[in-house]
């Protein structure tokens, strides 16, 4: 998903405060000496957890979900054929086992007979069939319908060319589901733990319509059920006694508070109201580290923050030297260290580090920043620019508050200092940026991506010719050809090699400006256990538990 979802909430935080810095000033003074928390090894008597969401979930209907806050809650309420392990890897969920044909185009899933809905009814293959047809049915108007494209006929159904019952999925019996794919899809399991493929309970939808997601009607099949929802404020979940693995779930309740204001989230964490928060401002990190130590959790999050070029507009069209000059003259390490307080790792690739995938560092990555600057000046001249004829360009970003503005002002300053380019900032509302990007009106703009699943293809597709995600209009036959070949490659290792080659093509073409890789940012009380940092930043409450402790 485009990483700007959290950025939108940052906008809200800024609005709520008028000036986020002013609001933070109240707590950024001398460190508050927190009473120490002592934790024992015994389980606490009360197994209840309070977590936060950056924004209100848009809809608790899995098929309509497109945002990260909703994903957090649905991960606790529902379970797909596969689910996520404590470290974010796909593991058996409702399906206990599966096998696929040698060409990887047909997959058969065997559902657990003990899987139950929260009203006691069995979860069957029919439920999945119904839910997935519902996802691609144009009548549902699901935002992510196109994500099912690997399934036979899915795209045609979503585009209204075929009826929903032609979807290449069959319920062979109550507990066997066969999925037919248009191409070998080695990442199918990663796709299956996306929330929009979670099953929904048909009788509730048919009976209550849009209101089926209200606490009094919602039937779920995950580790928790929906107890209460106050829109814009909190969502309370209770343990689901019918969950097939209920014996392993220790939490009795989970409360998700909507916390669009990061400073407020930190304050309430300090006050002891919150135990597992989702976000804090980068500028608060040094102070939080000093005050809370190990409770501040940053870890790699599968996402890349970058600037993108428009390949159809001057000055970047047909000017690879200019593009490369801008790429290499950004001192990423200084930016992340001083303006992001060390929270992120500087990026030189599109794909964040992922095991099994060889990072495609561009050749300039081996140079020191001084050497890079020399190279950049050479390229800048080669591109036809000079002190008399400087590059004039806008960086188009969305309004995200002072921290982001300073970051891009520094980028502009670097281009000016190293190259003599005249760079200005063009901040607009997120919706305006999104529209202008889609209409290909901007020459140089903010582009961010947070992986939906841990597969390089999820990132590389951003540059595939003619797709709606390809805002810059990048088009390269070699690149598209490699992705096409990868899509037909059943062997995952061989497929990764093809994807690596395609990323190398992006480097050759200086296709975008990598800035930094995302990082998760949680505050977690020491007595909250049963979570592990993972690349997808999906932490299911079903694994968590509370240890006995004193202090907040």
């Amino acid at each position, binding site marked *: 998903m485009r990483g700007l979802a959290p950025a939108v909430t940052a906008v809200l935080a800024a609005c709520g405060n008028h000036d986020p810095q002013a609001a933070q000033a109240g707590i950024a003074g001398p460190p508050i000496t927190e009473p120490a928390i002592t934790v024992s090894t015994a389980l606490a008597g009360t197994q209840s957890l309070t977590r936060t969401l950056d924004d209100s979930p848009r809809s608790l209907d899995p098929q309509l979900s497109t945002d990260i806050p909703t994903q957090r809650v649905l991960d606790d309420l529902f379970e797909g054929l596969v689910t996520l392990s404590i470290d974010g890897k796909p593991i058996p969920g409702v399906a206990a086992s599966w096998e696929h044909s040698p060409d990887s185009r047909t997959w058969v899933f065997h559902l657990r007979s003990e899987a139950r809905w929260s009203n006691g009814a069995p979860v069957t293959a029919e439920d999945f069939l119904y839910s997935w047809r519902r996802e691609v049915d144009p009548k549902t108007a699901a935002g992510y319908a196109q994500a099912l494209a690997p399934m036979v006929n899915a795209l045609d159904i979503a585009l209204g060319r075929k009826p929903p019952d032609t979807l290449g999925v069959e319920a062979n019996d109550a507990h066997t589901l066969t999925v037919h794919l248009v191409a070998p899809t080695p990442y199918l399991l990663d796709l299956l733990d996306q929330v929009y493929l979670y099953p929904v309970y048909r009788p509730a939808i048919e009976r209550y319509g849009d209101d089926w997601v209200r606490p009094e009607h919602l039937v779920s099949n995950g580790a928790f059920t929906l107890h209460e929802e106050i829109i814009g*404020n*909190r969502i309370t979940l209770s343990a689901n006694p019918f969950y097939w693995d209920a014996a392993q779930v220790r939490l009795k309740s989970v409360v998700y508070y909507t916390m669009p204001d990061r*400073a407020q989230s930190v304050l309430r964490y300090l006050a002891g109201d919150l135990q597992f928060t989702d976000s804090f401002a980068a500028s608060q990190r040094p102070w939080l580290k000093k005050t809370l130590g190990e409770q501040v959790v940053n870890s790699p999050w599968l996402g890349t923050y970058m600037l993108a070029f428009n390949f159809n507009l001057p000055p970047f069209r047909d000017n690879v030297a200019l593009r490369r000059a801008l790429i290499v003259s950004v001192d990423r390490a200084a930016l992340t260290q001083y303006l992001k307080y060390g929270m992120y790792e500087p990026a030189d690739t599109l794909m964040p580090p992922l095991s099994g995938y060889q990072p495609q560092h561009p050749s300039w990555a081996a140079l020191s920043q001084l050497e890079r600057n020399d190279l950049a000046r050479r390229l800048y001249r080669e591109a036809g620019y000079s002190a008399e004829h400087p590059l004039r360009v806008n960086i188009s970003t969305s309004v995200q508050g002072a921290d982001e503005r300073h970051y891009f002002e520094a980028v502009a300053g670097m281009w000016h200092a190293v190259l003599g380019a005249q760079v200005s900032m063009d901040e607009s509302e997120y919706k305006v940026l999104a529209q202008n990007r889609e209409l290909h009106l901007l020459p140089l703009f903010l582009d961010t991506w947070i992986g939906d699943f841990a597969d390089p293809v999820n990132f590389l597709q951003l540059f595939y010719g003619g797709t709606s995600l390809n805002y810059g209009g990048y088009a390269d036959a070699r690149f598209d050809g490699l992705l096409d070949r990868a899509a037909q490659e059943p062997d995952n290792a061989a497929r990764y090699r093809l994807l690596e080659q395609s990323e190398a093509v992006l480097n050759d073409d200086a296709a975008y400006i990598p800035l930094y890789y995302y990082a998760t940012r949680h505050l977690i009380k020491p007595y909250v256990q049963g979570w592990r940092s993972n690349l997808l930043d999906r932490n299911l409450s079903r694994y968590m538990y509370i240890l006995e402790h004193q202090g907040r």
Partner: protein
Amino acid sequence: MLRYIVRRVLESVPTLLLIVTLAFALLHTAPGGPFSADKPLLPEIRHNIEARYHLDEPLWRQYLRYMGDLAHGDLGPSFQYRNTSVNQIIATGFPVDVSVGLSAIALALLVGIPIGLNAAWRRNTLWDRVPMALAVAGISLPVFVIAPLLVLVFAVKLHWLPAGGWIAGSPSHLLLPVLALALPYIAYVARIVRGSALEVLSSGYIRTARAKGLSTARILLRHTLRPSLAPVVSFLGPTTAGVITISIVVETVFGLPGIGRFFVTGALNRDYTLVLGITILYGALIILFNLLADLCYAWIDPRVRLE
């Protein structure tokens, strides 16, 4: 009196219609649409979604459709929060705003009026100067400074009160937001009461009352208070509507489930129906409280006749 009220209510209908029409036009002229977002959709899929909300129709038809639904009290579905209607969002959030807002106004009056009266009575003493200096500070300090400070002191440091959140009917969750919201208004009310009370105290009938040897309490409460309140009442009309509605900062800092935040996120996300619904509500509130203020004014000042 009844005729006056009926007339004012009828007069408000065209005003509201104008507000709705203007808001509708402005929202639809803003660049970006409700579904130009996170992940760009395939054109056909986007069309499906827009068709579901009738956004594919010509604007005049959308307008007529909206007005038709509005006539039935239906504010339409939210685009941003699918499965949720604007009526549901307002029904959940508005009572919270009302309870916090009205409590803050009550607190502002209960504290502000005595301070103002006392300052006027003991004009140019410490009883006047200190509270008035504080009042200037209270008016100048923005709520986004006061609110986090209150949380820091009373919740984080002292652990006396919750740092935020909302439990319906829980006074401890109400206290800090009400205080944060009320502080500037305490200051306003105190200054207004002081000003008008000074004028009243210099009038002839107060001198007569003093000459008769009436007690201070009687002079202040019986003869000064009521006429001093007239400007407070005119101030309260638009202010009450404002306190109930524009508490977005307080809502955000204390994590209250009011509708102020939806107003802002709705505008940013181009959630047309949500913004329109809240605009209508806010417009109606301002009209209502201005009417109430005029009625109170007539009650306080017998010289005012409502025609």
